């Protein structure tokens, strides 16, 4: 069975299969579910960043109308800790009187209506015994965690190379805290029946929610079912099982009623993670003709007390350029802040800003065009391992992007391009995104009516998983797309990994590939029971699938339909499982490649008033095989909007003394609005990747990366002013 050589279903821009559900309001998100007997929970958050709860007065809340329960550390049941693996679950909520960050939950109130629950929550009085919080990334008292992920790297002799370099660029950069702010308020609806628990939850990782709830409440995992058919965005926020999820299940167990919790927008700033602030220092050495001789990149990011977070920023410099001497060092600083967590392109977003800004600084110092400088240092093999890439079309990204943008029209001298009162700047950045893939399982079924049902307990957070897996399964089973249904978001399905790390499409697509192949094999086995079958004696390599039939390669008439095989054998349906586990680079003899990309940006700067706008963005992306160009383009556009947010607007600001987030609303924390965003040009280049059987590379995050650097570089080109801190706001740009 040969597949994907001449695909019919994958590739073109098919409309989302869930589109009609979403445009009619019929798609049901976790907070759209309800239960007749449902109660509602509201949270009470700490108003200090460090110390202890000294006094709790819950009397007024308990006697308020409609209140069913008030849980605090004084009466909450003790729970086991959750999984500590990758993206650990925070410690059980309400376990003791300690306060580790502003916004930590100190109570949950359950009432018969949401209005009554939140009103009663306000009536709880909490007295604190405050301690001095650690809030500043530079605080020398804060614990430092060197090389927290074992990702530090060093090769060659960077110090000596820097000493010998013709030109050295050295600079410090900062990036602000950002908050994921998916538009969907994270919500949980929990219902217990004895030791079985059903949960609707805003998550990107249902199987992790199930495992965590089972472990923390000490109930069998088989009795916990987590459902998430649709989720209102996540951008990483749904990768952990946050305390509000646990508290909702706890409240439901304590009250004996289904309980629904819908977070408030301010709670979304403290309760579901955020992108950490970073301080980074970089030194780049080069020869006069623009050969990189040394890169030394150091990064410090923040992490909560008792938290963990994967945020390799300096590591970005170990995969981008051919350079004989490289040192990359990351460290974390523990502070009394809400948990830091993955936000679309963790580490890459901030690390790329620094590396690609510094490369731009170098190009200006050398008088070499920024694009030419990048091409001169092109990494033909993986710089760290020396292995060949599983695919790499970054050169084509540069070429196609530059051509479509009109990069050659750039006048090198900063401040030399104008349009009316506005200064015009061109900037660019390159991206070599990391690779990630986790094991995954899927199941495929073909029924007697010739329709297929394929499923896995994963999520579609808006990336298009429902659609692209429908296309892929249609391709692999030889069915029309309207004969295929893809199911997800239910832990009763075979387990799948998180929608994160740009890794789901490769993991799930590979599992669906395996399941579909196994299913065709099962049909062959079923057919072979009849020696007269035209498929008798065939194995997978001998057959093709088209039009709901399995037939001999090149002989469409010599085959049988799925329905016919099932009917002949008296079967209602046949199913098969498939799983995927990525090979190691050593096994494969190649460096698995993430996506690559090049961004070209034109900005306008109003020098008198410090106003900045993005006029054009051209992106060229190597995403391996693109399963659905329309949806992949949307991923790049959406990521670009996020990148514009990071570059120009987004800054989670805390009070210096208290750690209270001072702009925890969508009116105060600025994300881009429609008027900030120009039309965009997106091209996909390259071809199928060699590392997984379907040749894909994830494109969910790369769209955000590179925008901060490309915009900062364009601002420099427009104004001659180098801005090394994002966001680039009016006060920073005012000339």
């Amino acid at each position, binding site marked *: 069975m040969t597949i994907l050589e001449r695909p019919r279903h994958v590739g073109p821009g098919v409309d989302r299969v869930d589109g009609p559900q979403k445009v009619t309001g019929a798609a049901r998100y976790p907070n759209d579910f309800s239960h007749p007997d449902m109660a509602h929970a509201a949270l009470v958050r700490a108003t200090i960043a460090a110390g202890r709860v000294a006094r709790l007065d819950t009397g007024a809340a308990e006697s308020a*109308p409609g209140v069913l329960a008030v849980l605090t550390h004084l009466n909450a049941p003790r729970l086991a800790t959750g999984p500590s693996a990758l993206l650990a679950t925070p410690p059980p909520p309400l376990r003791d009187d300690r306060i580790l960050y502003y916004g930590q939950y100190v109570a949950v109130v359950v009432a018969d209506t949401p209005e009554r629950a939140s009103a009663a929550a306000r009536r709880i009085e909490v007295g604190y015994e405050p301690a001095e919080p650690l809030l500043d990334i530079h605080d020398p008292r804060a614990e430092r965690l060197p090389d927290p992920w074992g990702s530090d790297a060093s090769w060659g002799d960077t110090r000596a190379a820097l000493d010998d370099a013709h030109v050295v660029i050295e600079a410090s950069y900062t990036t602000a805290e950002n908050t994921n702010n998916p538009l969907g308020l994270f919500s949980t609806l929990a219902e217990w029946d004895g030791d079985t628990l059903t949960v609707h939850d805003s998550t990107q990782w249902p199987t992790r929610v199930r495992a965590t709830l089972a472990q923390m409440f000490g109930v069998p995992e088989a009795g916990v079912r987590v459902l998430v058919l649709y989720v209102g965005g996540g951008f990483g926020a749904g990768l952990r099982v946050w305390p509000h999820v646990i508290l909702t299940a706890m409240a439901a167990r304590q009250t004996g009623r289904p309980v629904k919790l819908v977070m408030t927008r301010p709670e979304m700033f403290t309760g579901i993670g955020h992108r950490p602030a970073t301080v980074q220092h970089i030194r780049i050495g080069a020869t006069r003709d623009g050969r990189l001789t040394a890169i030394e990149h150091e990064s410090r990011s923040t992490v909560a007390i008792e938290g963990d977070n994967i945020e390799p920023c300096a590591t970005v410099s170990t995969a981008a350029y051919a350079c004989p001497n490289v040192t990359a060092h990351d460290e974390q600083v523990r502070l009394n802040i809400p948990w830091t967590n993955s936000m679309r392109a963790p580490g890459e977003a901030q690390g790329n800003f620094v590396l690609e800004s510094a490369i731009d600084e170098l190009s200006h110092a050398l008088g070499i065009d920024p694009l030419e400088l990048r091409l001169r240092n092109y990494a033909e093999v993986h710089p760290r391992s020396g292995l060949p890439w599983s695919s790499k079309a970054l050169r084509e990204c540069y070429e196609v992007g530059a051509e479509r943008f009109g990069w050659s029209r750039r006048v090198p001298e900063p401040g030399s391009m104008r349009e009316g009162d506005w200064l015009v700047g061109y900037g660019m950045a390159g991206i070599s995104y990391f690779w990630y893939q986790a094991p995954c399982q899927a199941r495929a079924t073909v029924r007697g009516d010739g329709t297929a049902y394929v499923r896995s307990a994963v999520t579609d957070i808006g990336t298009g998983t429902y659609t692209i897996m429908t296309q892929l399964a249609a391709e692999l089973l030889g069915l029309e797309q309207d004969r295929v249904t893809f199911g997800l978001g239910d832990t009763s399905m075979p387990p799948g990994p998180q929608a994160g790390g740009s890794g789901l499409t490769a993991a799930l697509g590979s599992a669906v590939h395996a399941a579909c192949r196994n299913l065709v094999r099962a049909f062959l086995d079923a057919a072979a029971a009849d020696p007269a079958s035209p498929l008798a004696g065939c194995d997978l390599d001998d057959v093709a699938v088209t039009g709901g039939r399995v037939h001999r390669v090149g002989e469409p008439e010599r085959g049988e339909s799925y329905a016919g095989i099932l009917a002949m054998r008296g079967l209602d349906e046949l199913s098969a499982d498939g799983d995927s586990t990525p090979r190691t680079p050593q096994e494969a003899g190649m460096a698995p490649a993430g996506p690559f990309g090049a961004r070209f940006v034109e900005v306008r700067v109003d020098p008198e*008033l410090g106003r900045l706008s993005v006029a054009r963005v051209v992106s060229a992306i190597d995403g391996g095989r693109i399963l659905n160009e329309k949806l992949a383009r949307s991923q790049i556009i959406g990521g670009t909007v996020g990148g514009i947010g990071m570059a120009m607007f987004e800054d989670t600001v805390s009070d210096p003394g208290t750690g209270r987030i001072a702009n925890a609303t969508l009116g105060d924390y600025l994300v881009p*609005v429609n008027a900030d965003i120009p039309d965009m040009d997106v091209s996909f280049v390259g071809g199928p990747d060699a590392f997984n059987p379907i040749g894909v590379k994830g494109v969910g995050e790369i769209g955000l990366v590179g925008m901060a650097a490309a915009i900062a570089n364009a601002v420099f080109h427009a104004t001659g002013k180098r801005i090394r801190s994002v966001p680039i706001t009016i006060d920073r740009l005012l000339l």
Partner: protein
Amino acid sequence: MREFAYFRAADVGQAVATVAADPEASYLAGGTTQLDLMKDGVLEPDQLVDITRLPLRGVVREGDTLRVGALTTMEELAADPTVAGRLPFVREALLLGASVQLRNMATIGGNLLQRTRCRYFRDPTVPACNKRRPGTGCAAIAGAARMHAILGASEHCIALHASDLAVPLVALDAIVRVRGADGERSIPLTDFYLLPGDTPDRENVLVHGELITAVDVPLPAEGTRSGYLKVRDRASYEFALTSAGVALLLDGGVIVEARVALGGVGTVPWRAREAEDILRGAPPGPAAFRAAAEAALRDPFTVPGTAFKVELAKRTLERALRTVSGVTS
């Protein structure tokens, strides 16, 4: 939100009598500030008197005055032909504020009474806020201040009055018509707002129960040009970092009449009379514009996060003067 009683008033007299008789009652019009602050727990009225169906809606021209019913929405006022023709900077200020949805809800009376966006005022868990709890101090001064005032501010309060609309209206000497339990009165908008002084909790001269029924906007002389320039981080849907509302009447190469007010900088909508005095009688040009800007921003009260606004506000005013006058050099 605390529980409250909802009461829909049948006429203006009943509305005023009801609120005046209940010290814990508030009016409910567009709701865009009132309900937001109630959800935050900043306002906790025991009764809301819904005035949205009272006959206080509509725009009528009476000679050289435009009478704007207090319940006219921002969108309705922006669509009024007299506003479009004679008061371009009022229309621009309206359309640069909020979003269409909010402008369909928010009323002109409510807009003038909108409360500050200061997140220290809007978060009841912050202990120090003289505006919310008199005598407790001002947490914003040592906090993350940026969207805060630099004029009329003091160590007691740096909360910004964020209305765009009020900027051209103070420039035009609009009159607020008010009805209270003791009858009606008219208050010049320039006297309507109170500088915070050491009582930032007192924001205007209204007494409890008084209801804005209309705003009278004097039309400027024929030939007056005006414009509203709003500077902000986002291209839309954001409050101003700085703004300037300018109306100029030029004759024979000289500015014969000037109205100037600033937004984004004042604890109240900021009328810049010193700037007007400099402009009046001067030939339009960079020298006069810079002098006016310097005068308008004299003696600012800044904290580190707001210091940049001083120069930004000057340039905003200069740009607005250039644009409105058409004199760029």
